[in-house]
């Protein structure tokens, strides 16, 4: 039995913590199977989700190869349906979310707030196993007689009923989503409880790093949205197998109800995906500009506002159904541009007159900023019903959300370069990193940009063949070229990981970081900290390492702060040699 003890009991020189590190019995595969340490689970999550990124990416490359010529024969029409369905499903359900809240946040959030672990360590482990088995379940569809699910990643009724889509592939898709859905809900519970109950003394809510704030709002959104999807999936399963008619007109059901339920989860899900990556970019930009986050409170406010509004925008995916309240959803969707604009403004403000350091992580964050801006602005167009009626189900929409998700991939890669050294102890090679960045960034623009034009020209999405037209052929070729560049960038990343394997020891604080995770060792010890600094601002590690440039403290009464500032030894003692900073 391990007692979960808050850090101050471990003073670095009392010889207690060495003992504490040793008692971890199992190693190897048994450690992977039985560990309840958030860092081990988070690493499992990260690796699994990157594998899912590679699998989903392979599907994308096949899709783009098929579309490189108007009458592509690389896959059959039926296989094409399976591929775009599983590409979307793998990327949304199995990569982007789990990478962010199961992988990076699982490792980083407890360390950022000075907690020894997640609030419910065994529930955390269960989340991972449900996620892994859910992923395997969904992909098992390819090995069944009828193939994998082929109704699009949104599974609209009545296409997804047992007459139009018979076979085990669709059921495996539903089952896999049930498992990963529960995994996400458990992670949401865990993150919320951890952030509410396990913060270090002095780490008030308004001193939490922006990444942790974004994860809190993400976790709340998970709790609001995912149960709705789970309920919808159970109804869909009942329609397919138990003869209910919830989504079929024949028995008095309402097919469009599925769309309401799906998108009531689906649009908050967009922010569940995006907010963690916003947080990652915020941390990276602040550290590599050597400045505090510009407009910290407005950043928190913007995140909360995005979270609040996200529950009232779902039907902008359903404008063309003709049965939704166009003005309500249009206004709500347009309103989201305001907090998002605040964020963009703050990111630029953070860099403004900063001492910029263009590491791979910083380049990735800048690439995120630009790509996200393109995707975000086209999203504003789509929030307007007249424009949406014109572009609905065309490549314009495909290009819009691929700009968004590729921006998230850029930020996620930045997070791996930025936080990877913290949880592995080793840096990645910067030269390979920069090659990867330029391939990924240019590839993203080359593959999305022609799709905007194709969409405005009327090319529908989800088609395997298209009419002979020199312009469409050229634009599709460019798009395919961009997808190949993105694929090559992923190969460069894998090569980089192999090349840099245990080659460049990181030290505790390679980037002169500002938040608590850079105060501990790399990788952090069991239960994360041997000791903690006093927390008097949202940048405790910076305050400790740079007593001459201490952050303005939030929430301290001026008199008391005055005393503290004069008692420098108490607030921010001189860095000691064992600190490794």
């Amino acid at each position, binding site marked *: 039995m391990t007692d*979960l003890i808050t850090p101050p009991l471990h003073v670095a020189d009392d010889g207690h913590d060495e003992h504490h590190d040793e008692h*971890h019995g199992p190693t190897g595969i048994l450690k992977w199977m039985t560990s309840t340490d958030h860092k081990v689970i988070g690493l499992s999550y990260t690796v699994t989700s990157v594998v899912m990124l590679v699998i989903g990416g392979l599907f994308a490359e096949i899709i783009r190869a098929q579309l490189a010529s108007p009458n592509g024969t690389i896959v059959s029409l039926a296989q094409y349906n399976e591929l775009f369905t599983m590409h979307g499903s793998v990327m949304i359900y199995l990569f982007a979310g789990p990478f962010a809240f199961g992988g990076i946040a699982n490792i980083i959030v407890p360390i950022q707030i000075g907690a020894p672990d997640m609030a419910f360590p065994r529930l955390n482990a269960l989340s991972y196993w449900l996620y892994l088995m859910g992923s395997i379940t969904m992909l098992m569809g390819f090995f069944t007689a009828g193939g994998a699910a082929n109704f699009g990643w949104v599974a609209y009724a009545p296409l997804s009923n047992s007459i139009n889509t018979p076979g*085990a592939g669709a059921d495996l898709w539903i089952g896999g989503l049930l498992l990963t859905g529960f995994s996400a809900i458990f992670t949401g519970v865990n993150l919320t409880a951890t952030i*509410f109950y396990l913060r270090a003394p*002095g780490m*008030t809510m*308004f001193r939490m790093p922006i990444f942790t704030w974004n994860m809190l709002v993400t976790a709340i959104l998970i709790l609001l949205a995912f149960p709705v999807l789970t309920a919808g999936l159970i109804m869909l399963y009942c329609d397919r197998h138990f003869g209910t008619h919830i989504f079929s007109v024949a028995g008095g059901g309402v097919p469009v109800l599925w769309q309401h339920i799906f998108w009531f989860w689906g649009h908050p899900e967009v922010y569940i995906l995006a907010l963690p990556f916003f947080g990652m970019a915020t941390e990276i930009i602040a550290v590599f500009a050597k400045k505090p986050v510009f407009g910290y409170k407005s950043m928190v406010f913007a995140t*909360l506002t995005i979270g609040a509004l996200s529950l009232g925008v779902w039907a902008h995916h359903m404008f063309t159904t003709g049965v939704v309240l166009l003005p309500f959803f249009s206004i709500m969707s347009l309103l989201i541009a305001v907090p998002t604009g605040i964020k963009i403004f703050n990111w630029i403000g953070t860099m403004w007159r900063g001492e910029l350091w263009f590491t791979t992580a910083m380049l990735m964050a800048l690439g995120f900023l630009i790509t996200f801006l393109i995707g975000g602005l086209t999203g504003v167009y789509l929030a307007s019903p007249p424009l949406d009626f014109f572009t609905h189900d065309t490549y314009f929409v495909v290009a819009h959300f691929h700009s968004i998700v590729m921006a998230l991939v850029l930020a996620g890669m930045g997070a791996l370069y930025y936080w990877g050294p913290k949880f592995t102890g080793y840096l990645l090679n910067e030269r390979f990193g920069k090659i990867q960045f330029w391939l990924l960034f240019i590839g993203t623009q080359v593959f999305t940009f022609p799709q905007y034009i194709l969409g405005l020209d009327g090319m529908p999405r989800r088609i395997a063949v298209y009419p002979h037209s020199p312009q469409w052929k050229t634009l599709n070729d460019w798009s395919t070229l961009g997808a190949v560049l993105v694929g090559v960038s992923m190969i460069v990343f894998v090569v980089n990981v192999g090349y840099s394997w245990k080659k460049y020891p990181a030290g505790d604080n390679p980037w002169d970081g500002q938040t608590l995770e850079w105060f501990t060792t790399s990788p952090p010890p069991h239960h994360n900290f041997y000791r903690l600094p006093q*927390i*008097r601002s949202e940048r405790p590690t910076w305050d400790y390492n740079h007593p001459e440039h201490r952050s303005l403290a939030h929430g301290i009464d001026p008199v008391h702060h005055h005393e503290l500032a004069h008692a420098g030894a108490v607030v921010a003692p001189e860095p000691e040699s064992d600190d490794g900073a």
Partner: protein
Amino acid sequence: MRMEAKILLILGAFFGIMFAVYWRWSIEDAGGVMMFAGMLLCFLPGSYYYWWSRRMKARPEDDPNATQTQGAGVIGSFPGTSIFPFTLGMGAFFVVMALVFGIWFLVPGLALAGWALLGATSEGRRGGHV
């Protein structure tokens, strides 16, 4: 504690306003019901936190001037390692297989899940395998 309560209560109130507007204005019920449920889901823990925040002193993590020693102590006791999350995950996997391939998958599924529930409970009581 107070800030946590405030966030959830404000979110819940916002969902409540959205629900009222949408309910009056729209012709379908599903969205209104889901927004109402979202409001309740925020009010439930939010009011709990608010209730406690009025009855307890500020925790060290809520005190801007807290020192690290104020947080010292044991906060919980958990098994250092546990096989039961894995077992329960496998049980859930087999239960899902029963939904797809045949009811007989419930036998290993429920067996594994039951074993995991019993094991995890007793592990929590007796001290786990460290």
